[in-house]
């Protein structure tokens, strides 16, 4: 499965959300995006953005002081 990693370190919300949103637009259904972030706000904001826009949250976790959020693209609602 295609997974694209985006570096959102040092970005404060909502910039990581905007990065995910922009990346989603260029990817097909089923592709995954892994956002590596340093703002803990992404653990709530990216899942919320995914829910309201119909994409699937795969995981949101903390790892070594960074926050990793993985979203699977689903353009079905659009």
């Amino acid at each position, binding site marked *: 499965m295609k997974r694209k990693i985006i570096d959102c370190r*040092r970005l*404060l*919300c*909502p*910039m990581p*959300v*905007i990065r995910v*949103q922009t990346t989603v637009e260029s990817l097909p259904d089923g592709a995954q995006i892994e956002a590596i972030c340093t*703002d*803990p*706000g992404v653990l*709530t*904001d990216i899942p*919320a*953005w995914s*829910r*309201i*826009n*119909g994409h699937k949250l795969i995981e949101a976790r903390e790892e070594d002081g960074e926050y990793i959020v993985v979203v699977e693209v689903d353009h079905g*609602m659009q």
Partner: protein
Amino acid sequence: MTKQRKAAALISGGLDSLLAARVIQEQGIHVEGINFYTGFCVEGHTHAIRKKDRQKEKRNNALWVAEQLGIKLHIVDIVEDYKQVVLNPKHGYGANLNPCLDCKIFMVSKALEWIKAKGFDFIITGEVIGQRPMSQRKETMPVVADESGAEDLLLRPLCACNLPETLPEREGWVDRQQLHDFSGRSRKPQMALAAKFGFEDYAQPAGGCCFLTDAQYSVKLADLWRARGSKQYEMDDIMLLKVGRHLRPAPHFKLIISREEGEGNFLRGYRRQYPHLTTVSHPGPLALIDGEVDEDDIELAARLVARYSQGRSEEEVVLAFTDIEANQKELKVRPLQPHEIPREWVI
């Protein structure tokens, strides 16, 4: 078959935009939200940075509002384009460096571009006549509609009955009888409407949702422009104004001194862009130096930073000065005493 009409709602995350969108949804219109990110938005950045604030519950109110409404939300980065609004507001600033009227005009014009690109029919906002002293007055309502170019594609559901009919009303897409006539600063009509719709846990930002309405922030931004001799800023500038203690010991440089561990970690991310000072002999802050400095300036800066370390009462504190190429040197200084720090240094 009747065409499904579509409206784009400007969603700030506050109660008014929540209600405006719901009023239009109730009429069978498909609504999607747009939230503009200017860089000055108050979005829990200090919570994200300051360690002691990290335990506080934080949420993005625009996303929360969209979820309550069951609508999609498009967050749009307008940081670069927004500079023209902040730097040269045609209608001037409010009490601080808040260009509220120009801001509203700009956001509606951006929303107009968006609906044209996406095939939406009209724009809605949560504006209420008399709600805000600068941007939401009877006289400014037509100014926003005219100067944004939106004209009668701009519908304000909460106060529409006090304004001329818009296209969605004339065309019968929206029933004017079901719109509202709110006016003034009272929040009671909004609270009653929120109760009717079953909204309880909504955000009520006291000073709006923008750092430019904050007096202290505006003072720091004005100082930045004065020191640089021109009204310019980059994203890093406006983020750093939200962090730390800012002191300007001389016109040509200032210090940004962390106040706690979280701020220190955040400022450390800028160590390749700014020369910085850290304490060596005692626990203490990290300080960025913004400006061109010579040896005397560095010593003064070090004495000032030592003042905010745990060695403040000692005869000597050892600090490390690091330039942007990571060259480091050690300094031994006597911390400044409170009476040696003029009030005007503090921005």
